[in-house]
């Protein structure tokens, strides 16, 4: 279940990863690496300038049991929100 834009804007991430400038699979690997570092149920926010990151992170979250919350567009990059599910 993805969150609304307003909900995302009000979301405080337990961890923000700046993966801007990295190409696939960099941002995905950074997200994977960050998950064990935050409590289950908390949110990780990934910044990426690679346009495929949002769909890739969505597919990955579904596969491995995290919750993809959605994306906010920023200036030249995407802010991708994932809740740790396990």
């Amino acid at each position, binding site marked *: 279940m993805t969150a609304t834009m307003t909900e995302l804007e009000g979301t405080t991430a337990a961890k923000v990863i700046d993966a801007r400038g990295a190409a*696939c*699979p960099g941002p*995905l*690997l950074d*997200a*994977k*690496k960050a998950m064990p570092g935050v409590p289950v149920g908390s949110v990780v926010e990934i910044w990426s300038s690679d346009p495929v990151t949002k769909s890739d992170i969505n597919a*990955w979250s579904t*596969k*491995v049991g995290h919750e993809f919350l959605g994306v906010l567009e920023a200036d030249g990059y995407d802010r991708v929100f994932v809740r740790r599910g396990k």
Partner: protein
Amino acid sequence: MNDTLSIVLFSGTADKLHAAATLTAGAAAMDRPVHILLQYWALDAFRANRIDKDHGLAYDAARPRFNEPVEQVGEIPWLETFRMAKELGEVTILACAGSLEVLGIDVTTLDPLVDSSGGIATFLVAAEGGQILFI
């Protein structure tokens, strides 16, 4: 079919090594076990004293192209991608014993990314029930 992804990595050019590394990293991120069998030129590329050298491009890069020079290819981060993949997931890299023999390479001279040497049966048993790719 199980989740295991197995790759027979034969090629030793940076572009093909990177293609294999990207698949490996993606699968590892998705919690899929990955088994890699290094043969021939891939094995040569994993020699500890050469692994960080320039490994060139596949012959496809030299084909005549339509006003599109291939000189634009940037640095290919294949080694870094493999390292990340191994750090993040269950990735086993096996050096093909037959190729080691033919190329006259001692397994102890390979990069530590390589777990061990092994025969084809070891690889096939590990790969059983999953997908196998040849690169």
